[in-house]
C-alpha cells in the first residue's frame, strides 16, 4: 500500500486503520494518521504536500492536514467501501471511487458536505481512478475504462471486458494504461481507444493490483500475484525485468515521478528499489 506523494515521501495505508507517512530517502516514519474506522484503502497527497486524502472501507474519505495530523474533513456519501481516492492537480477537488459504482467529486475549498458531482455511469464498483489536468480516468469492475473529459464535456468509454484493477495515464498524457483481471496490462491510445500494446505474463486474477509506467514512459510495470514485479518494454512489449519482491502478492507499486526509483508493497512492508544494480533499500513497516 505504497504511494509516493511526490518523490520524497510515501504514504502507506494499512489494515490497522491508520495512514503512515514515511520519508523515502531515510526510511523513517514521519507521522501516523489515525481516524478511519476500517482499513485504509488508498491515499493521495496534494501537490503542495500540505494535505492528504485517504479513503477507507468505512465509506468515508478523510482529508488530513499533513503537519498537524488532524482530520480536516471527513466526507461521507459513498454507499460502500471507497477504493481509490485522488486529488486533482490543484488540490481543490478530491475524487473518490467506490465499490458502489460512483465517483464522487468533493470540494476541498467549500464547507459543503455533499459532493459537487457524482459520476454514476459505472455499472459496478470503481476500482481505480486517476486525474490528469482536466481529465479523469476511472477503471471499473464492469470492465470499462471511462475517461471524463471536463474540457470537452465528453465521456469516453473503452470496453476491456475484464474487471479493471488499475488505470493510469502515461506521462505524456497520450495513452492510458489499464490492468485487468485477465492478467493483462493494456496500453490504449487515449484519443481513439486503439490498443497500442498488451503486456502479459504476470498473474493478476483476483487481487486489485497496481500497474504503472516508468518516469520516462519507457517501461510498463505491473504487480503480480506470484510475488514479482513485471517490467515490460513499452514499445516492444517484451518482458525486460522480472523483479522478485517476495513470496506473497505484490500489492502495490509506485514509480518515482522523475528518478528511476520504484516502490513496492508486500505484506506490510514497503520496499524501495533504486536504479543502481541490485541496490534495494528496505523499509520495514509494522503494519
Amino acid at each position, binding site marked *: 500500500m505504497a504511494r509516493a506523494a511526490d518523490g520524497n515521501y510515501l504514504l502507506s495505508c494499512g489494515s490497522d486503520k491508520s495512514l503512515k507517512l514515511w520519508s523515502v530517502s531515510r526510511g523513517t516514519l514521519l507521522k501516523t494518521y489515525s481516524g478511519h474506522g476500517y482499513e485504509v484503502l488508498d491515499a493521495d497527497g496534494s501537490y503542495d504536500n500540505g494535505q492528504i486524502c485517504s479513503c477507507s472501507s468505512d465509506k468515508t474519505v478523510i482529508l488530513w492536514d499533513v503537519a498537524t495530523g488532524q482530520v480536516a474533513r471527513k466526507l461521507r456519501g459513498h454507499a460502500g467501501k471507497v477504493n481509490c481516492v485522488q486529488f486533482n492537480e490543484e488540490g481543490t477537488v478530491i475524487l473518490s471511487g467506490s465499490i458502489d459504482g460512483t465517483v464522487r467529486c468533493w470540494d476541498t475549498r467549500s464547507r459543503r458536505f455533499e459532493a459537487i458531482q457524482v459520476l454514476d455511469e459505472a455499472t459496478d464498483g470503481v476500482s481505480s481512478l486517476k486525474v490528469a489536468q482536466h481529465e479523469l480516468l476511472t477503471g471499473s*469492475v464492469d470492465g470499462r475504462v471511462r475517461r471524463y473529459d471536463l474540457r470537452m464535456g465528453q465521456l469516453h468509454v473503452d470496453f476491456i471486458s475484464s474487471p479493471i484493477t488499475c488505470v493510469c495515464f502515461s506521462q505524456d498524457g497520450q495513452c492510458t494504461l489499464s490492468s485487468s483481471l485477465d492478467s493483462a496490462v493494456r496500453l490504449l491510445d487515449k484519443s481513439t481507444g486503439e490498443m497500442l500494446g498488451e503486456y502479459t505474463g504476470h498473474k493478476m486474477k483476483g487481487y486489485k493490483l497496481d500497474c504503472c509506467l516508468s518516469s520516462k514512459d519507457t517501461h510498463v510495470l505491473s504487480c503480480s500475484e506470484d510475488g514479482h514485479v513485471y517490467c515490460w518494454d513499452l514499445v516492444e512489449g517484451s518482458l525486460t525485468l522480472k523483479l522478485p519482491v517476495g513470496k506473497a502478492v505484490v500489492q502495490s507499486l509506485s514509480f518515482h515521478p522523475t528518478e528511476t526509483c520504484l516502490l513496492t508493497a508486500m505484506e506490510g512492508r514497503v520496499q524501495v528499489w533504486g536504479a543502481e544494480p541490485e541496490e534495494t533499500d528496505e523499509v520495514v513497516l509494522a503494519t
Partner: protein
Amino acid sequence: MASDSDGDEDFVSYGTPLEPLEEDEPRKKPVPLHEQTVKDEKGRFQRFHGAFTGGFSAGYYNTVGSKEGWAPATFVSSRQQKAEKQLARPEDFMDDEDLGEHGIAPAQITTSQEFSSSRRDEAREKARAVNAQAALIPGDTLLEELIAPARSSIGVELLRKMGWKEGQGVGPRVKRKARRQQTGVGARVYSSTMPPAGSEDSEDDDDDDDFAPEDVTFAPKDVTPVDFSPRSGVRGLGYRGLDPGMALLGRAAPEHIDLFKPQSETRSRLFGAAQRGSRRGGGVAGQAFGVGALEDEDEDVYHKDSMSRYDTELGGEEPGDGLYGWTAPQQYTKRRDKSKDASYLGKILEGFTLTQRAGEEKTIFPPPTLPRDYRPVHRFHLTSVSVSRLSGVSPALAEALRTSRGHMVKEEPQQGGRHQLDSGQRRALLGEDVLQGPSSVMELLKPEDRDRLLNLRNSSNATDSRHATSSALSGAASSSGLHQQQQEALASWRGVQSSTQSFKPFEKNPSKQARYELYLDRLRQGDRDAVEQSLDSGMTEWERSREREEFVRASILYRPSSSSLTARFTSAKHDEDDGDTVEVSRDQEGDVDDKQAAVKMKMFGKLTRETFEWHPDKLLCKRFNVPDPFPGSGLVGMPKVKRDKFSVFNFLTVTESRETTAPPKPPETGKRSRWDISDQKKKIKEEEEGDASLPACSSSEQQTADGTKSVDQKSSDKKSNGDEEEEEDEEESRPPMDLFKAIFASSSDEKSSSSEGESEEEEKTKEDEGKVEPQALNLFNISSSVTSSSTSVTVSTCANQQTGNLKISGTFSQMLVRQRQPSWLSTKKRFSPRHHINPAPIIR
C-alpha cells in the same frame, strides 16, 4: 353667564398672576448662568442643550457614545460561535429616563387618559355612540362610558376658563332670532324630502317664541364631532354589518345614518329627544321571538294572518300603477313627469323614459367634391399590362382583360403570396440548398416501371390492377417464409450501387447497423448466404435467428427504391413524450456482445470505444480551471431522456445489455454466461476444463435478499465444481425462459437452477427474507474481525461477500479489495455476475 354690559368683564385673564412686588424688598440678584443648574431625579446634573428633550441633552452630548467614545456592540464571529443576528429595538436607544414614568416609553403601568375615571366627554361619547349604532354589537361603548378620562384636555380646560360650558357649541354667541330664521330656511328646503322630525329644534323654537328677548344671545348649538376612531377589523369601506335597527327593533333601518343631518331619527333618538315609550327599548323583536321580559306591553306575538292580505281574485284589481307587473325602476315611473324633456315632443311609451344622456352624434364626412372636369372613364396604358405574368388567370380571362384593357396587373411575383411560387423559387428565396437525391418521383422508379407508367399515361387507361402488381411485392413478402424473403431481398438488392444515404433501421445500435450494412453489401454482391455471413458469430443462436429475421425484413422494407425515397425525408427522432415517463440515460451503451467479440479479437478502438456527451458540474469545471463545456446548460452528468415508465421493455433492453455485461470475466478462466455457450460450446470446452465456471445468476436473483444470494452463491459454487451437464440441459429451452425469468421470476424459480440438495435450504432462506438472515448476520460480524486478522478461509470469503452485499444494496461487485490476507487467493472464489439493474421496474 357673561354679559357684555360691563367693560372689565370683557377681558379674559390667562395664566396665574404674578405676586405683587413689594416695594421695600431688596432686589434679588439674578442667578448667574453657571449657577443655573438642573438636576435630574437622581441628583445628577443635567446639561442644558436645546429644544429637544425638554432642553436637556440626552445621552452623552446627545450622542449614543460615552466619554470614552462610541463603542459598537462587540462583534464576535468564529467558526464555533457565529455572530448572532442583532435586532435593534427602539428601547435599546433609550435610557432609563425615557423608560421612566414621564419618558417616551414608560415601562411602568400608568393610567392613561382613556381609562381613568369620573369625567365624561359627552360629545365624544355621542360620536362614539353614533358609530356604535352601526357596529355589530350596539352599545359596546358601555364599558368605555364607565371608565371616563380623569383629566380633561388642555383645550377643554382653556375653553372652560373662557366661559364655555359643556353642552354648548363653540363660537360667537348668536341671537336666537337669526338662528331660527336660518333653520327655518333649511327646514323649508328639506321639508319636501324629510319628514318633519320631532326634534329639539322645534321644541326650542316653541319655547323661544315665548320668552326670548331681543337682546339675549345664546351659545351656538353643540356640534357632534365626527368620530375619527380608526377602523378595526378587515371589513371593507362602507360595510356596516348587521343593521341593528333592522335586527333589534324589528323594523327596517329608516335611513342611512347621516352624521351631518342631526334630524335623522336614530340620532334624535340618541340625543335623547326622541319618542320615548312609543318604541321598545331594545332587544330582539319579531314574530318568532315572542315577548321579552323587559317588554311592558303585550304585543300580538302569534301573528294572525287574515285572508284580507291575500288576493283572492285572479287578474282582478291592478296594483295601482297599471303597469301589469312591469317592474321598471321606481324612480323612473315617479320622475316621469318631472323629467319630461322639452326637446322630445312625441309621446313616450309607457314604461320608457327619456334618457338623461344625449346620444353620441355621428359625424358624417361628406364625400369629396369631384373636380369639374372629371370624367368617370379610365384609360389604361397598354405597356403596363403583361398578361403573361398573370399565372393564376385563365388565358381566356387574360385575353378578355387585355382586350378590354382592364387593369389586372400584379405588382411583383414576390408579393403574390407563397402559393404563387413553386418550391424552387421558395427554396431560392430561403437560401436553401438543392435537395439531394432525385428531383422527380419518376426518377425514383425503375426504368421499366417508368416506361410502364408512361405507357399507361399515354394510353390513358391506367387501372388499379397494374398498381396492384407493382405493390404486390410487399404483400407477397409478408406471406412467404423467411427463405422466400431472403430470395426476394437478394433480388431487389442485387447489383444496386451502394447509396450513401441508405436508410438506417438500426441507428440506435451502431454495431447492429454495421452488421446490417455488411449484410446489405453482401446482398448487393449477390451473395446468397448474406445473412448468415454477416451475423455476429459471438451471439447466441436465439439472438442470431432474431437478428436474421430482422435483417431480412428490413432489407425488404427498405429496398433500394424506397431507400432513395427516404432520402427526401428526415427520420423522426426517437423521443417519446408521454405522460408517464421516466428518465433514462439518453445514450445507452451499445451491444456488449460485439465489444466482447472485438476484445477477443484484440480489436480495440472503434468497436470498443463509445463516446457520450457528459456534462460536468459548473463548480467542478471551476475547480479544475476549465471553462464549462456547456455553458448555460443546467444539466449535470449524462443527458437524460424520458421513457415510458410502465413499459417493461424499456428496461428489458437495459437489462439485456447489462445481462451480457455479466460475461466480463477473464477469458482465460473461460467463464462465460450461459448465453454464449450454446454456440461456441466446442471452443469453450477447451478452455473450460477444470475451471470453476459460475453460471451467471439471472438478474432477479440479484434482486432478492442478500441472504438468499449468499446461499445461492454457495450453492452455485458447489454445483459448478461438478456438473456441467445440468447446465447444458437447461440451455435448449433457456433463451425465452431466462429472459422472462430475469424480469418476472420470483426467487422461487431459482430452485431449478440450483442443485436439489440445496433447494430446501433455499426455501428456508426465502421464508426468512423479510427478517435479517441469521447466518448473514453472523457472517457480517465475522467480517469485521476479518479486517484485523484473517480467520478461516471459507468463512472469511463468505463474510466479505456478505458485507459487500449488505452494505451495498443492489451492487454486486467483484470483491476487489486491496488484499491483505492471502487466504483470499486460495479460495479461488469470485463472483462472476455483476448485474445492475435499476431495481425499481423489476420489483416483484
